[in-house]
């Protein structure tokens, strides 16, 4: 699937660590890429397949329209998304069969550069300390991303 370079290795470790820490089913890192800054999922831990890798989030929709644009963390629940008729905009939830998720924006400077998402295949409310842990992991991940420039990968 991926040829893991050092950076990816470190990031995957962070994702794995976070997943164990908060006991969630799935953690993934999405980065905004290219001039159009499209959100793509780069790495994950706990994924059931590789579909997340080929997902490109639509600009202004789903997480790109909420977490990225507003620059604030967000709790997602499938029943609420269904009720709001928005579930189809959250492709990564569908690909991984998640029922709940918590997504935070990753900042470099004052620009959002990506998203860290923790998700579960059952209904879950992320508590304050869990949210803090996600935020801390987000900071570590941002640091790794910022230190080692994003490699241009054509896929």
């Amino acid at each position, binding site marked *: 699937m991926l040829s893991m370079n050092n950076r990816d290795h470190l990031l995957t470790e962070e994702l794995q660590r976070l997943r164990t820490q908060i006991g969630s089913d799935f953690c993934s890192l999405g980065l905004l890429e290219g001039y159009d800054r499209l959100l793509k999922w780069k790495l994950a831990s706990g994924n059931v397949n590789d579909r997340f890798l080929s997902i490109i989030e639509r600009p202004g929709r789903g997480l790109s329209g909420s977490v990225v644009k507003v620059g604030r963390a967000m709790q997602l629940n499938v029943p609420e998304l269904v009720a709001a008729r928005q*579930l189809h905009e959250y*492709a990564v939830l569908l690909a991984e069969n998640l029922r709940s998720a918590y997504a935070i924006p990753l900042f470099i400077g004052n620009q959002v550069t990506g998203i860290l998402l923790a998700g579960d295949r059952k209904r879950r409310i992320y508590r304050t300390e869990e949210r803090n842990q996600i935020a801390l992991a987000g900071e570590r991940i941002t640091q790794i991303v910022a230190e080692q420039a994003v490699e241009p990968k054509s896929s």
Partner: protein
Amino acid sequence: MSERSSQERYPSENIAENVDSLLERLDGQIADPAFRDVLKRSLKQLADVKFALDEASIVAVTDRKGTIQYVNDKFCKISGYSREELIGQDHRLVNSGCHGKAFMRDLWSSISSGHVWQGEIKNRSKNGGEYWVDTTIVPFVDAEGRPYQYLAIRHEVTQLKQTEEQLQSMMAQMMQIQEEERRRFSRDLHDGIGQSLFSLKITLDRMISEGADKGLENLGREVSQLMAEVRGLAWELRPSVLDDLGIVPALRTYIENYEQHYGIRVHFDCNLRKRPNLLIETTIYRVVQEALTNVAKYADVFEACVAVRDHGDHLEAVVEDRGIGFSREKKGRGVGLFSMEERARAVAGELRVRSQPGEGTAVKLKVPIKAG
């Protein structure tokens, strides 16, 4: 009730017709008083039930061949024929001709093999007016199980049918209006806001190339993103390619975007050589869109198939997946499947959904077209 006097015929073909005269003669015939009472009560019950039936429903009795032997007042009233005109005829007299041969064949093969038939029939009255009746036909069978008589019980449902038709035509119009609105919004977004953003972007690019402030580059980037969003929004509402280039390029673009968005591979197979009319194109587009969205939402698959084929007198669009499937009973309260059916109906087509838990789902749309 009947005006025909057939007291001499025992048993009469008309249900419960002999009851009164039998009751009169029972006393002299049966010695056991207890048994006689039971018999009397049963006969009385039969007459009462018959009376109740006549009060409530449109009733007709025919013989094995379908010749009318009995009709009640309600039958005469709704059909506009007198009893004399009806008795001895068959139901072709009130046939509206709106049900095809196959429909009648099914009906007859069902009742002549001793099964109860139930359905809605459109009839024509003597003065030419049409009426709908919800119909139950019960065969009376002999000892060998062969029907010798048919009892038809009907209730008028004309108003219900008319309301249903009105509702359907209203729905078709609503969908048409919705499509037109979407087309208009899409154009306005694209040509209005989209164009303005484009000029803004060009101005910014010029300023940047003339060595303006670094901050403008970020602004330029944000404007591009905004443009992409507006383009996406316009496309989601209604892709202009559908109007400009037709269903095939529109579906190709849709599928390309779909694959990117959901990470689901779609095999697209199409043999259309010319464009059907726009209404049909819209129907196909929306049905495929809805069905593929369902695949992404529920099927849990890596790939799906879309086929659009020209069969000469009709077009067929099929969306298929090998995913988790579903059963009709547990289907949710969504409007997707329902709206697909309505869309199909609005172009005189039909929509079939085949699905089994664990076996996947196939949505098939068939639309008649003028051949040639």
